């Protein structure tokens, strides 16, 4: 797949206006997303390297699974 060879890292970002607190992101990517007491996601702010394939795949599932399309993956190139 070539994912392991990609340099840099990513961070999951949420559009708080679109987010409606469905919670699918927390179920799909628990290592990146926790829930606050009102059902809205608290997303890890630290960068996750692409080598962490499990986390990256979880992030992609979360982006695809969000009913409001509120998530996106932001790539950060550590050059």
């Amino acid at each position, binding site marked *: 797949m070539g994912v392991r060879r990609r340099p840099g890292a990513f961070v999951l970002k949420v559009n708080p*206006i679109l987010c409606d607190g469905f919670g699918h992101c927390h179920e799909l990517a628990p290592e990146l997303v926790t829930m606050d007491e*009102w059902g809205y996601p608290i997303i890890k702010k630290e960068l996750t390297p692409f080598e962490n394939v499990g986390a990256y795949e979880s992030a992609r599932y979360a982006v695809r699974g969000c009913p409001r399309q509120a998530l996106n993956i932001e790539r950060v190139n550590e050059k």
Partner: protein
Amino acid sequence: MLGSQLPRLLHGTPGTPLTLAQHEAAFAPTNPRADLLTELEASGLTGRGGAAFPTARKARLLAEQRGHHKFVVVNAMEGEPASHKDQTLLSTNPHLVLDGAEMLASIIGASQVMVCVARDRPALVNYVKRALHERERKSRRSVKFELHTPPWRYVAGEESALVHWLDDNESLPQYRPQRPTILKLDRHPVLVDNAETCANVALIGRFGATWYRELGTEQSPGSALVSISGAVARPHVVEAALGTPIRSILVAAGAEAMPQAVLLGGYGGTWLSGQNLDVPYDNAFLSAYGASTGAGVMVVLGREGCGLVETTRVVKWMANESARQCGPCAFGLPALGEDLTELSFATASSPAAFSRLVERCGAIDGRGACRHPDGVVRFVRSALDVFGEDVKQHLRGAPCGAIRSQKRYATVPMLEREEELIWE
């Protein structure tokens, strides 16, 4: 007063705006400068709306945008209830503000200026209408002016909310993940600047950056309008050179010389303890206390007041002013208000409320689309810091007399039913 070269902005009598003729008699007529952007950069003017972003940098960003139709928006919404500076400025000399807007329009290449004043202030709307009418008759404009009157709300003064209102008739702040983002009004780039900033631009455009820098400090040049309320005989607006010690400003305004604390910046700002009031009114110095000049607001907390009670009232009002687009703000801010109420009343559940409060502040911070929840969290944290002794008292179950006395200092606009704050 506060500098022999003052007043610069508040030149005239508030409530009796200068006519165009008087304005042109008092100030030199505008000679369009070709190097206006360079002068602005040299002057180091920062925005007076609250964020203190360098005005020249913003203008340059807009000037570099491609597009035939650009807009300039003069933000005189003044969403802060404790702030009256823009109203005072527009009721004293609206033409200074409009001159500045015209200059900014010429810098970025805009053909239209939209002046936004809250429709709940009919007197102000009339002043601006009259001023625009006078300019129209003079017909010396290459720029078209329009007056818009959004309804007054706290977030309506936020620049993305204002542009959204002009576009879609709803004052909803927008999500801007990358800063700086160019705001778009109907797909055209738009420059939003506070009314006081525009007035400063007008002065720099006339008299140059060197003159402008004669007042103020190296990092914060010029003068600023400050709205003082709370423990004053009469709340009003003063103009002070940046860098003046805060205590001098308070004394000049007739406020209590040794107050408990002063709320700086606005309802999303920070408290400054009464012992630290000799710090210069300058962001470079205030940042050491975690404070900033913000929207030029000082609310003075008198001796008989309780900082926690004032904070609670303000937070509950700010929670109601949320646009409710984002969960953490919509649900989190009322929760903060509830916890603060429990803390203020010094009941048995106060310690639990206090720990919940601290935890929730950490959870809400930075998770909204705009900076509204961040401001409230910063405000609450500063209250817990500055009024630490009071917090300890309240936690011990010994509230101060302020709860029972009706003395209140912060102006919190009345809700129809103060208990019915939000929702389900």
